[in-house]
């Protein structure tokens, strides 16, 4: 299994210079899942917010581009927020669904990542060409190939057109809004001094007003935050004291977790990408039919995308400070977090909400327990500053990985336990809403018990 993962990664990284002899249907889904991850990592100025949104549309496009080939499944067009309709196949015509999938993925990735570097675009193009060439050779039916490619592209086009009105379109051009005036209140967020970003404006301050994929996710009620009280022993103070003490007593493994789940958008596929990557692991392990691959990517994509919108809504509503602001002021002037601060307010945690949302959908799809090994950062050079190496991590359930993701921010000294707990609870609700979408047709023959 591991060898297959590595092989796929190598193939992606060389842009398909060495085409495999064959593609099974599900392998087409697999390589495009990898490509989405690759593009999110290789594109400059990416952000966790924008990348999650892209995974949402890329996953949904994969699902919608093949759903009509599987009679027990149905389009989500009526269940999603503000969709008119998605293209349907011409009746009486046949389609080759892996080709629809491939063409749709290539198109939507390029639509959503026009800021990708030329070399990255070439990798997308060559993968698409390779898949097309393989099936053209195999099917020996030019008309079928053309029709299938056109259909995949039409689905991607429709989804992209709809995406342009959600508030996040070309969001990478507005990462930091210079005109945004942050709220001022005691305990408010301050630009980081030990920062991940050279901007001192907060990232995507209006992202929380973006349209969610599911209306239900926008309607999740406001969470509670702990009232600010700088008195030692108060619940608020205690939260920071826990971070402070953890920071002073980090074990080797906790340091590894803090670095592993950092998922910096400048160097990796972003935190949401890590969840999308876990989906590829589960799919490679279980090898379901192609539609389940598409459904899995769609479910994870929708859940992490909505998770970041909901998260950003409350982040900018509460606009809370990070431990790096509170602790030097009230506990220890020399204290500094293990991991640098991201450029946005703390509550609730983005890592916690997106990983909980993804774990909720992945558990629903693949069950519990489910063991897997996360190789996401294996092979990266060691983190010299923190003296930490990247070692593969083993898990027995998706929830265990989600817990670790959230805790890793606490170990990193950039989130309170409360930021994580509330993030997780919001994430679970978001994941449940995604699970409850009408993925399957309400088939009477199936649902009526004898």
């Amino acid at each position, binding site marked *: 299994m591991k060898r297959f993962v590595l092989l796929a990664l190598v193939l992606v990284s060389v842009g398909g210079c060495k085409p495999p002899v064959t593609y099974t249907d599900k392998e087409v889904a697999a390589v495009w899942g990898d490509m989405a991850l690759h593009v999110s990592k290789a594109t*400059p100025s990416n952000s966790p917010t924008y990348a999650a949104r892209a995974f949402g549309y890329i996953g949904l496009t994969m699902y919608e581009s093949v759903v009509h080939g599987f009679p027990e499944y149905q389009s989500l067009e009526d269940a999603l927020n503000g969709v008119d309709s998605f293209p349907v196949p011409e009746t009486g015509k046949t389609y080759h669904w892996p080709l629809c999938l491939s063409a749709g993925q290539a198109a939507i990735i390029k639509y959503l990542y*026009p*800021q990708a570097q030329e070399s990255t675009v070439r990798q997308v193009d060559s993968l698409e060409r390779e898949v097309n060439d393989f099936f053209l050779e195999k099917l020996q039916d030019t008309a079928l190939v053309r029709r299938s490619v056109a259909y995949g592209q039409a689905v991607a086009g429709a989804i992209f057109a709809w995406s342009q009105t959600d508030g996040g379109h070309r969001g*990478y051009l507005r990462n930091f809004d210079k005109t945004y005036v942050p709220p*001022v209140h005691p305990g408010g967020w*301050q630009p980081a001094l030990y920062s991940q970003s050279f901007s*001192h404006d907060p990232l995507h301050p209006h992202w929380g007003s973006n349209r969610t994929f599911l209306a239900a996710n926008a309607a999740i009620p406001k969470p509670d935050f702990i009232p600010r009280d700088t008195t030692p022993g108060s619940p608020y103070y205690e939260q920071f004291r826990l971070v402070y003490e953890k920071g002073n007593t980090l074990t080797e493994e906790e340091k590894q977790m803090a670095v592993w789940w950092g998922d910096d958008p400048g160097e990796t596929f972003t935190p949401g990408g890590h969840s999308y990557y876990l989906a590829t692991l589960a799919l490679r392990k279980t090898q379901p039919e192609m539609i389940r691959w598409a459904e899995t990517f769609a479910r994870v994509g929708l859940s992490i995308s909505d998770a970041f919108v909901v998260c950003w809504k409350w982040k900018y509503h509460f606009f809370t400070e990070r431990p790096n602001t509170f602790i*030097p002021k009230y506990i220890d002037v020399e204290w500094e977090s293990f991991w640098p601060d991201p450029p946005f307010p703390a509550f609730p945690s983005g890592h916690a909400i997106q990983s909980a949302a993804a774990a909720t959908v992945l558990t629903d799809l693949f069950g519990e327990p489910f063991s897997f090994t996360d190789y996401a950062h294996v092979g990266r050079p060691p983190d010299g500053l923190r003296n930490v190496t990247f070692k593969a991590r083993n898990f027995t359930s998706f929830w265990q990985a989600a817990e670790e993701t959230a805790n890793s921010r606490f170990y990193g000294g950039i989130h309170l336990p409360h930021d994580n707990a509330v993030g997780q609870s919001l994430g679970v609700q978001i994941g449940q809403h995604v699970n409850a979408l009408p993925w399957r047709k309400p088939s009477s023959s199936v649902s009526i018990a004898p």
Partner: protein
Amino acid sequence: MNLSTLQRFLLFAGLVLKVFVSIAQIPPAGNAPFVDVTDSSGIQHQFKVYEGMFGGGICVFDMDNDGLEDVYLTSGMNDDQLYRNLGNGKFQLAFEGSGLELTRKYVTLGVAGADVNRDGWVDLFVTTLTSRVNPPDIPRARNLLFLNQGNGKFVDATEAYGLADLYSFSTGISFGDVNADGWPDAYVGNYFLAYEGELTYISDATIAGSNQTAKGYLLINEGGQRFRDAFQEYGLQHRGFGFGALFTDYDNDGDPDLLVNHDFGYKAFPSLLLENRFPRKRFRDVSVATGFDLKINAMGAAIGDLNEDGYFDYLVTNIKFNRMMMSQGKGKPYVNQAKELGMKTLAISWGANMVDFDHDGYLEVFVSNGDLNPYCTPMGNFYFENDKGKIVDRSVESGLKDYGIGRGSVVFDMDNDGDLDLLVVNQESVRPGYPVPSITRLYRNDAAKGAWLKVRLKGSEAESHGMGSRVILSVNGRRMMREIDGGGSSHLSQNSTLAHFGLGNATAVDSLIVVWTGGKKQVLVNVQVNQLVEVGEAKGDNPVSIWPMVVAALFVAGFGWLIWRRRKRASVGSID
């Protein structure tokens, strides 16, 4: 001040109270060691940021060779300023009509001077972030080189010197004679990716890719005719968020090495120390071995042999805590001793100067502090007095604890009374209601008590102002050394190019040694104190250019002899 600003200030006051002394505690006005003479000096300046926190700097240079050091100040979105020093602490604007008005078209940041064409007048190199007039979508612009005509006029030589196509978001500029040919070379720090020429087509991809780290420019001066970027040729490979570099001979081998400041060193490329392999055209990266691979937000640096071990020490400024990199002797890594020395105080620091302000023979440290626009909490400057080797924080008593948004700072003897005065750039606060005025300030030094000596170098083969050369004094059994500042020091700035020494109660200097760039030495004995000494470079062969050749010749001869012997033996053996 409106209510929200007041609230905001009070909120921040928690941090300020704990770390910095409260703003209410205004430094004593009476007999402070330093007196703010900004108002009476005629200098009126404030740096205005383009966006974010960058800038600005000051260059101290004698524009008209009248023995009074003048100053050029960059201003970002405001107009730059050139002040002619009239003596007695008075300055007069000399910008209008100088030819430097061209800088108005650009967002300027750093500045340094050197006699680029060796005509005897110090020329100016001004770095820019972008254009002020019709700025491109991706902020970039050419830097500007002005040749000093000596009559108060400067001529734009950017194009003529081959610099017009270097489209960059540049920060610090420093001069150093990398190849010891007497023509000042330069290093320019770039913060974001640079381009060759103006971008004609801009796509989302170009914009998204534009905030990537950048290479610097290593500009080799070709006979005073033009500059050529030799970054790769010299084996340089780094790409960082550059804040410029400082040419300094850290290893005492007579050639300028390069200390490169990088912002976000913990995330992108760390800071660097590059050893000049002159006479080879090569820099060797010795960052890790020397401990200079600083993973910090390196903003600037000050230089001085604080521990008097014959090697320079370097204060590297940073966000939160500065690094006081102390030499440990030849070949040993430097160690950050900011905490041990009592200089680990929280602030956001930019400019720094390490000089003997009070003339007791020991180096003081001044640090210019200021928050990151647009969210600015007032934070005062640092003044660390050196009481015979013991550092004492006298920020409050010094009269230097201004709460403006400080950036570059320079020292020079503005009134020619023998001691070093201080000029500090401050930024305008982007958001209104900053609680104190944040303007550039000139401080007259009234702290100096002891004897002093100033040394002006005049290179004939070395760079004409002795840039990068070293002056070493032996006095009362102590050894003091200074390096002539080529710019890129403090933050985006250049101090006086005169070597300055405080000498306590000494009446004469036992010996004064000049080590010119290239390694040639010159000795003066029994120099009287309290004067400015001019040392002209004596003609003679440059020892560095000969010795490697001699060594190489010996090596080749020896190796040839070995081979000859082996061959002989082998041929003898084959008979057996």
